[in-house]
């Protein structure tokens, strides 16, 4: 069923792109690549690794592994409104209703046999305890080998060395399964692609900072989190290039000035995944999400002569890996660079990692005089959505800002 879904998506988008060969169509190209990844995951011909969010997908790709973080599937099930039955399945088997719904959805999919079987599992301790617990459940359920990358939360030499050594061990673990050693050459290419993608990402985000911004409320939704799945590939570089072209084109053709931008907003953590017309609502009210908290390049270029240490530094540099003080500093820097007027923190129900910082993030914004709206919303499970209440609060917030 899922394979067909992705195959149809690949066909449909390819047809559309063929009809407009000169167009930039960044978003379509991006969705096409993600659908291709989905197709590969469900094809049963690939060596599959289910992973934690911060796993080194470039390194795994260089080793011939089709890998993905499980939350991606949770988001996809939610966005296609097919998650309901999976939530129920997970809850019926004892997974707590107040746990993170990204995980509940995928656990339900595992139990209903709707996930591709992995060859092995690579858990990451960042961003969250819950994600790692789900990875252990995967390994237990599928009876597959399990590797954990412990991501320390301090950016110290010892911490970097520790994670680098684990990454090296991980390559041995993967080689044990594939019977192929890590090819230095392939890794070099992957890191080169990663660096090229990172440079383009920086340029994309710099363009997004323009006032008025050429982005729209949907264009870069959860972009940095998802693009890591392909940054080590040529396709990743091409997608980043397409987004850069798209933004430049919008600026050149003046599209961005015509868009309404009374209020510039930052979105904290992840977006709402199911269809909920908050973006349209913001459009109508003249508000634009110009930056998602995670849309940033927090790492130095990868060093092909020192690959494990570079990747380790990158993994620790992600704001969720470190303590909240670092996360807040990062948010405050973005707030200044993007000249935002306000921020929306959805406080995704069930995410202890993220919502546990609600008060501190609010204070961090207060310190720089930026109002923040804390919503209490499940970004993945729409069954208890208090739609009217959310709409009223967003409206009132924007009114206050204007």
């Amino acid at each position, binding site marked *: 069923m899922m394979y067909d879904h992705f195959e149809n998506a690949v066909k449909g988008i390819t047809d559309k792109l063929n009809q407009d060969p000169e167009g930039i169509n960044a978003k379509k190209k991006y969705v096409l690549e993600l659908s291709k990844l989905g197709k590969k995951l469900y094809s049963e011909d690939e060596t599959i690794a289910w992973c934690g969010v911060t796993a080194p997908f470039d390194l795994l790709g260089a080793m011939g592994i089709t890998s993905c973080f499980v939350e991606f599937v949770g988001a996809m099930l939610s966005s296609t409104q097919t998650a309901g039955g999976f939530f129920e399945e997970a809850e019926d088997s004892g997974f707590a209703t107040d746990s993170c719904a990204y*995980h509940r959805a995928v656990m339900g999919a595992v139990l209903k046999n709707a996930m591709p079987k992995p060859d092995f599992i690579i858990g990451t301790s960042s961003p969250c305890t819950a994600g790692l617990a789900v990875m*252990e459940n995967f390994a237990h359920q599928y009876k597959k080998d399990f590797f954990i990358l412990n991501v320390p939360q301090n950016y110290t030499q010892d911490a970097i060395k520790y994670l680098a050594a684990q990454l090296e061990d991980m390559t041995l673990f993967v080689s044990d399964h594939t019977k192929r050693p890590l090819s230095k050459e392939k890794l070099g290419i992957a890191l080169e692609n990663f660096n090229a993608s990172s440079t383009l990402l920086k340029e994309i985000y710099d363009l997004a900072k323009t006032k008025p911004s050429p982005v729209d409320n949907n264009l870069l939704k959860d972009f940095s989190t998802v693009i890591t799945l392909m940054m080590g590939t040529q396709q990743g570089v091409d997608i980043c290039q397409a987004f850069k072209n798209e933004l430049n084109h919008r600026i050149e053709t003046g599209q961005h000035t015509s868009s309404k931008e009374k209020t510039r907003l930052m979105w904290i953590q992840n977006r709402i995944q199911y269809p909920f017309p908050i973006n349209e609502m913001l459009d109508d009210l003249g508000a634009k999400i110009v930056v998602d908290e995670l849309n940033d390049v927090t790492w130095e270029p990868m060093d092909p002569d020192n690959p494990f240490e570079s990747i380790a530094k990158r993994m620790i540099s992600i704001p969720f890996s470190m303590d909240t003080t670092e996360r807040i500093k990062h948010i405050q820097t973005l707030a200044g660079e993007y000249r935002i007027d306000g921020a929306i923190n959805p406080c995704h129900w069930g995410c202890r990692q993220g919502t546990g910082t609600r008060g501190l993030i609010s204070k961090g914004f207060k310190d720089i005089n930026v109002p923040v709206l804390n919503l209490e919303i499940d970004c993945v499970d729409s069954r208890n959505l208090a739609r009217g209440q959310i709409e009223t609060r967003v409206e009132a917030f924007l009114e206050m800002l204007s």
Partner: protein
Amino acid sequence: MNKKIGFTCAYTPVPLIEAAGFSPFRIFPDSKAPDQAGHLLHDNLCPHVKKVLDRALADDLPELDGLIFINSCDSMRRLADAWHEAKPDDPIILVDLPSGTNSLSLDFLSKEYERLAKTLFRWNNEPFSIKKIKDKIDNWNLVAASVKKIEKKMSRDYFPGYASGLQQIINTAATESTDKALAMAQKELQPEEPAKAGLAPVFLFGNLLFDPKVFDLFEEWNVHVTASDFCTTSRFITPVDTTADDNIFRALASSYMEQTPCARTMDTAKPGDIAQKIVQRAKKSNARGVIGFTLKFCDPYLARIPMIRQALQKESIPFLMLEGDCTMGSMGQQQTRIEAFTEMLGV
């Protein structure tokens, strides 16, 4: 009176605190402090973490010369963050704790424990001394051995009040001193009443159960606690195998990583092993049933309940799962379910 160091997690090696000349003070979430932590954190964090922060916000704590937090789960990480805000003048150290056990993790944790030890000695202006650490570990191991002996006895027979007595000893080690706990273990816990029959032998597990009165309540409700596995019960008194490594911090790390099977720590070679461990311990303690008691919003435990349930089912061991907060009040609500469960065990 000794100066105190506050801590919140069972992965904190108390001997390091005592070696540096401090007294340990585990901050239990028992307090009438008003609920305010949710503003700084979020309401859907575990009640353990929230209540501990409530105590800090309401100044419901003895004077503490420093705080040790362990990066054991997201809620704990967030507690450490919030403490900086609530008590900006408190010296704090956050120990990074790996999630999986392997030799790299042991190396890393041993360095973290060494960093902790050096920080504690520095906080107290004491010269760093491995000898003092070893002496305190020896003392700690005596308590651990006594606790093991007591648990063994408990698993064989039911002695009224024994379980709550054991909890008092453990709490003393957590909040006062190892010496005092040792004295209690050696003198005070001689069962006065003879062994009784008729109660349902049950193994208890979960995250937090620390009030001795709760164990008395269980007895009133027909439960003979044969053994338990909480981060506040005997698991807290982790014996340190000093022969495991010449480096004392590595010995500490391997003892804590390998013998303290909190749900947050995984053996990657045996995913889901916590379920098997619970089955084994229930059997070894001669329990006829198992009660799991976990706090709401505790991801590490709640995510493992389905596999624990499955493993117990496979062995035909009856299982009752309870969820709540840390208060005695929430316990009261469980009476009917616990009594029905023990009746079902048919003792």
